[in-house]
């Protein structure tokens, strides 16, 4: 089963951190990524650039408007994702729980749709 783990955080929190705290966080991330790569569970991943670079696009009545933001005023923002292929939903939740942002913000575990199907 494929799951997408959505990472939510607020970069403002980490700005006040010491080098040591940041290193510890990177080490946590590194060890989970290494484990997922080694186990053959990692499908893909991406980290998103700071919300400062976000542009929002809307089309209304055929007219496209593009605005800056939303910026960091939101408490939690979508910061990146891990796509994994693992055996059980419990395993997906276990990985999410170990991702450091889960301790301060939240991780969302979303099942990914597939195009296999059984006739009923």
């Amino acid at each position: 089963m494929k799951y997408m783990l959505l990472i939510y955080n607020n970069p403002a929190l980490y700005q006040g951190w010491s080098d040591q705290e940041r290193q510890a966080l990177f080490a946590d991330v590194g060890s989970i990524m290494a484990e997922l790569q080694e186990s053959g569970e990692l499908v893909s991943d991406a980290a998103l650039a700071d919300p400062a670079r976000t542009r929002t696009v809307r089309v209304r009545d055929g007219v496209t408007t593009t605005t800056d933001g939303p910026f960091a005023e939101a408490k939690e923002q979508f910061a990146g994702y891990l796509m994994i292929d693992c055996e059980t939903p419990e395993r997906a939740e276990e990985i999410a729980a170990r991702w450091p942002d889960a301790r301060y913000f939240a991780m969302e575990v979303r099942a990914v749709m597939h195009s296999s199907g059984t006739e009923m």
Partner: protein
Amino acid sequence: MSGETATEGLLRELAPQVLGSLVRRYGHFDECEDAVQEALLAAAVQWPASGMPGNPRGWLITVASRRMIDQWRGDQARRSREVSAFERAPDLRAVAPAADEDVAAPPDDDTLTLLLLCCHPDLPEPSRIALTLRAVGGLTTAEIARAFLLPEATIAQRITRAKQRLKDAGARFETPPSWSDEAIAAMLHVLYLIFNEGYTATSGDGLQRADLTSEAIRLARAVHRLLPDDGEAAGLLALMLLTEARHGARSRPDGTLVPLSEQDRSAWDAGAIAAGTELITRTMSAAPLGPYQLQAAIAAVHAEASRAGDTDWRQILALFQILERLTPTPVVRLNRAVATAMVHGPQAGLAELEPLDADPRTARHHRLAAVRAHLLEMAGQDAAAAACYQHAARLTTSLPERRYLEDRAARLATGRGGTAG
């Protein structure tokens, strides 16, 4: 084109024989497996271009042996202190056969021994599947990755890790005096999973996945040939044949699913049905009953009805009752409830679903909601059925199933009503 296809088929046939032969001589399953992959790739490129060698198996064994020599020489040059591998292995230059040397027919058991090794209990299921397809099926990592819609690196890592685990577990390539039932059951389960992965693919997934179905059937045929007295090996092959027979009728060209009751039965593969039915009939009269045999028997009863209305549901219900005694899983109970409804009416089927609401394995499963919706529709409770179809549509992770369930719900909501059954 046909030359390439012929080469491909022959390579897949020879893959486990060549690997078995190498491991038998040199040990070191993991290194042999890499060497055989390289030899298969070399053959896939060279044979169609410059013609097939007189002794294809001998050619592959020679090329794979040379790859191992090169690899070990490289290792030796880098780390001459590591002599243990050389002490254990005979000198490859002395034993590697020449290309034209007639290699004795391989013991058939090699395929079985390799399958059991690839399905070792220490390996997680996804690794068993990937390793089986590569080491026994002769598929490349890229082909397996395409079939499973995963990146090549992910599959490569699963194979590497599986081989490392086998090494760590001290798993050996050897023919035990008799196979344990558990080992055979685990191997059959892997073949079943490979088949299902291919069978449930819809047109949107492309043709690569359909290859998994034929690969699973090919391996199941080999296992049945090697274990002719194993009822479950025969049952699994029959189940695959009878299920695959419906392939052309189970989905429309746009990928939407057609339920069993609405399939064009003239599009079913009569030859596969005859072969599967003959096999399961013969097996059930000779071997102790098992779950694959019962599932194949149920598929055979469906297959013998030329119209959905002619289906012998009493016989299907009886088979489900035996199956449930053997494997009392929620999925079996769910399917039995459908048979009960067809024999004793929808209310009797709905009553059988009730205990499943309390079972954490099925409470949030879309199949429970889908079956309930179907039975409510049979009972003429359209509004409740539509709500259940919608609920099932939200729970499934399959796009074609979601579409099917939403269509059923919409049909009931607009009052055009479905004809159930």
